[in-house]
């Protein structure tokens, strides 16, 4: 399927580089525009546009790393930094605003009560996104 716009949320987990490389591989044939996005979740006791220096620094670093991984994989990444109360809603709204065809989600391998745990953000994006969603789960550590 020729996806033209791919959105890749990055959160700073070990799966981020894999997802970025996957996005480059998937997007290369159709010369897709790939955007890495990081959402800073703002607590309810703060203003939505509060300047959170540490989170901003971290977000920029994550996006810069994603761009570097993308460059090494032979592609070019746009980056987007957002602040929202909930990451999932901001990702879906951005996908809608940008006309994204595919959201590529990365899930680090985590278990809870013996079962693989899918985080809230992944679940919410899966359910509410208007476009295709592909979730990439990291392999089980050996």
């Amino acid at each position, binding site marked *: 399927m020729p996806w033209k716009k791919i959105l890749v949320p990055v959160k700073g987990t070990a799966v981020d580089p894999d997802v970025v490389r996957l996005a480059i591989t998937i997007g290369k044939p159709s010369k897709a525009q790939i955007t890495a996005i990081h*959402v800073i979740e703002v607590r309810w006791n703060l203003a*939505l*546009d509060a300047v959170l220096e540490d989170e901003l620094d971290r977000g*920029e670093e994550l996006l810069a790393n994603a761009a570097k991984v993308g460059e090494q994989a032979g592609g070019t990444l746009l980056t987007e930094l957002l602040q*929202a109360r909930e990451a999932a809603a901001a990702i879906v709204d951005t996908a809608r605003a940008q006309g994204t065809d595919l959201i590529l989600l990365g899930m680090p391998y985590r278990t809870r009560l013996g079962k693989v745990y899918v985080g809230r953000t992944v679940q919410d994006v899966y359910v509410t996104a208007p476009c295709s969603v592909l979730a990439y789960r990291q392999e089980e550590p050996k």
Partner: protein
Amino acid sequence: MERPPEEDPPDTDGTPSLEERQRAAGRLPGDRYVRIVRPAEFRRGRGGIYVATDKATEPETALGRLYDRARRILFGRPIVTEAEHEERLTKRTGLAILASDNISSSAYATEEAMRVLAIAGAGALALTMPIALAVVGVLAIVVLSESRVIRAYPQGGGSYAVAKENIGTLAGLIAAAALLIDYVLTVSVSTAAGVAAVSSFVPELHDDRVIWGILVIAILTVGNLRGIREAGVIFAAPTYLYMLALFGLIAFGLFRVLTGDMPTPAQPPQPFPAEGTELLGVLLILRAFSSGAVGLTGSEAIANGTPSFKKPEAKNAVTTLVLMGTVFATIFLGLTFLATRIGVVPDLHEAETLNSVLTRSLVGDGPYWAIVQIATAVILLLAANTGFTGFPRLASVLADDRFMPRQFSFRGERLAFSVGIVSLAALAGFILWSFDGSVTQLIPLYTIGVFLAFTLSQSGLVLRWWRLRPRGWQLSMVINVVGAAVTGVTLVVVATTKFLLGAWMVLLVLPLLVLMLYAIHRHYRSVADALTLESLDHPMPRLIPPHVIVPIARLDRAAVGALAFARSISPNVQAVHIATSEASARQFRERWARWTGKDATDGAREIPMHVIASSYRSLIQPLLSYIDDIDERDPRPVTIVLAEFVPHHWWELVLHSQTALRLRAALLFRPNTIVIDVPYHFEDAAGLDAHTKDRG
């Protein structure tokens, strides 16, 4: 025509930030989010700093992009500061890049010693081997002593740092000046020798040897501006080819000599006569030694360049230093042994090198002879590279200590010390041209600097061991005492035997260079005294609005822009017009009166205008005199606001008189004067037209 009303300044919300926060409504109520829009040219770094991205350095104009592309082809892509460690040298590239000068000396050291001995006749050539052993003995002491320098000063600086810290600033500067001179001469001499080696093959090149030499320097400059790692890659192959070719030749020669297959010595075009023209005396032997000692140059480059090595820097530098000494000694002793054993003699007129004659004796004039000659020619050309590594680094250390202009410590886009590299190329090229590219004329200038620096650094280390007395200091001290004595004696021998041949020039330039380094330091110290904030509690002074003078050539949009800006910084604005005739003065006054007449805004009406008629049509001088007079009557710094029209294209500048530019230049060194340029771009005019229409 009705004048548009005066505009209120637009509302501004403090200082603009690099980040913009755009609020956006989500699909559902409560799903609002904030998009943080950052400019592509900058990104946030850790600790609240902004980092300029590649985009920030991209040129904006087509011409700029073309220039940038050409520069990248020539010098390579810019390297980020964080990649500095990747640009460092391994032992393999370090040997090629820092030791090529020393190793290449083996190509001519035997011949230089033999040429002096041959004056006393063929029998005196038997002394070549003992002299070679003495040179290698000195080299061994130098290597051992320099390894102590590297361990004690892994941050580099070599002889300069050692002498400065342990003996004093003057000693340090003498060592630095000596090395700087020697690095420049290394480039000139090696280039001249390399071109001479090539012109032995192609005699047609001989007449244009200066041009070819300068071309070689230009190629080396570009190679070094591409960065030290790439320079290492470029220069590694010829260095290793030379080493392999010579090791092979020496091994084959030794095999033939030891198995009794003694080759017949080949004859150069015009061999030295067997009968000497001078008696063999101590002075001649010392001269032969000092000529052979030319092979010791370049051995300080590794100690100076220690920080260029990959970690652990000191260990890698010492290993490379030992390797360098071993390679030089093996080739030098091997060639000297074979030359004296077989009985080859140098050519009287330098038409063929001794190594060429020796190689022909051993392998004939077949392909191996050609390989040895080509490898020798190339390494001699590349030996100049040691100067390109040593000079910029030493200059940067001196610049950090404020003894050389600060530009020498700036690293270029490829992390190379670009100013040092280009300055060295210019100086070496100038010397090559001044001496007509002649090796014979340049050689006597050489080696004094390096032995002076060696002696000072060894003496400095002796004092250091005596003062600090770390574990095992006694052995280190003995090594450095012997090193200081040996290099000191060699310095005296070289300086006295070569004095009249040209060494006096170096001994004359050296103190002048030291004085220059001191003068630069004095300037920086006085500037620092004037500029340094003694305490960070120092409050920012509050200034009263300045007295502003706005020189106006014509009452046009550029002038109005400058007057409006002047009014925004001070209520005390004074306009001045220099008229070239009384008629034009009258015309200007009338136009000014209309502009500041009853319909004028308050701001314009409050600006007094002085019109000065200049009988000799001179503009700048009457204006400067006017500024002087006004300045005398007002204690505040005089502020000049200049209106400057900037045309659409750079080449249109020649169509304008550039009075503002000339006035700015004239005011540059005027004390108590602030000059503010208010540019008026061609595009602004179109914008203003549209703006006026909207309002009208």
